[in-house]
């Protein structure tokens, strides 16, 4: 049976792993390759590396880093941040990335998803969506790390991204991110029902139970988290053991 995936996410700034709380305060937590390799060894199923460097110099550093990650890590990894053209994606593919994620750039230019899928295949394209809850089923899509609301809504934009050729959806709830009280399970379950591609849940993991909930109530295919892994609050082997005991299929 297909296993539910646990995905540590590493935010990268100037070649170092960092983690912000609610996208603001930034703390350094170490070398991305070392940390990624450690997670892979501990049983992480995939890794996500998000480049939060904005400068041109930083971009080049990130491509070099991706090359180093690809040489050293034996599980699949996704890279994202600042990909707005085919050439950006091409450089990352050649550096060894298995998938790329697009977020703000796809909201501004949805055709980017079609172009990426046509050139590199859907399996290479993760559509990352940051959204903020309004009321009821109303979630507004935000860009620039949650700072700017857009006219797009979560459910229709996720479906559109799938129709345009995205291979996976990575949904981050801006209301849950960094709060550690659990994932946005209601919205996730609705998304999972409406999509026919895999759904990665992000934002809100603070305890092992939250992963059980996101795989059952939230119907997610994968759970992504950062700080709880970086600050060693939940070791991955312990999390996997717990999920197995709860009857969730994990590797």
């Amino acid at each position: 049976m297909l296993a539910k995936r646990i995905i540590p996410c590493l935010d990268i700034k100037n070649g170092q792993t960092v983690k912000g709380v609610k996208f603001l305060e930034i703390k350094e937590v170490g070398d991305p390759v070392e940390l990624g390799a450690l997670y892979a060894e501990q049983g992480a199923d995939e890794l996500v590396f998000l480049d939060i460097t904005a400068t041109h110099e930083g971009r080049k550093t990130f491509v070099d880093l991706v090359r180093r990650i690809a040489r050293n890590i034996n599980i699949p990894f996704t890279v994202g941040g600042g990909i707005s053209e085919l050439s950006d994606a091409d450089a990352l593919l050649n550096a060894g990335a298995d998938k790329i994620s697009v977020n703000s750039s796809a909201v501004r230019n949805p055709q980017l998803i079609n172009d990426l899928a046509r050139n590199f295949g859907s399996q290479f394209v993760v559509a990352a969506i940051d959204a903020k809850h309004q009321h009821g089923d109303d979630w507004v899509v935000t860009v620039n790390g949650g700072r700017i609301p857009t006219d797009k809504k979560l459910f229709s934009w996720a479906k559109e991204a799938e129709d345009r050729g995205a291979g996976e959806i990575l949904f981050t709830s801006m209301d849950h991110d960094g709060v550690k009280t659990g994932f946005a399970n209601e919205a996730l379950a609705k998304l999972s029902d409406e999509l026919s591609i895999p759904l990665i849940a992000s934002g809100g993991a603070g305890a092992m139970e939250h992963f059980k909930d996101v795989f059952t109530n939230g119907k997610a295919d994968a759970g992504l988290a950062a700080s709880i892994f970086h600050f060693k609050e939940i070791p991955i082997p312990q999390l996997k053991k717990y999920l197995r005991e709860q009857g969730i299929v994990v590797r």
Partner: protein
Amino acid sequence: MNIVIIKYNAGNIRSVLNALNRLGYEAEISADPEIIEAADKVIFPGVGEASTTMEYLRRTELDKLIIGLKQPVLGICLGMQLMCSWSEEGAVDCLGIFDEKVCKFQLPVDNQDNIKIPHMGWNTINNVKTSLFDASLEASYVYFVHSFYVAIGPDTAATTNYILEYSSALQKDNFYATQFHPEKSGSVGESILSNFLKL
């Protein structure tokens, strides 16, 4: 040992090379017929679309070359599908090394379990046979990304269950193939690659 990875218009060939390097092997990525034919081991990787890739293989005559290889050959993912006789992806005739058709996964009608396509992530290999797998690899997890599958047949070397039980590995004569990505399957994948290189 002289290992050659066939270079063609497919994505992520480098990840196979990286995996071999981690195991302590060097390999050459080449489309040169002489270099491929002289190799001790040939790896035919692949991420991409079947019909455009087959068209490319025909145009470059890599199709005839691959069929005629005598040394151990390992097809990976799309590489395995292209080694079959026909693919529903673009309705295209393929290399015909394995007498199997490649079909698209169909979602169950009610789909209560929210099954998704592609089959993406870690799943187990079962009923393993051939020297690609040792018995300890039975029921171990490997990494898959695919929307098309090969049914179970005489050349099946491992099976996996997703929507239905299908062939996650094939073997016939000197040709070996995996639907999953050993180069991305952690230590299990590394064992499988090592087993292939020891053939």
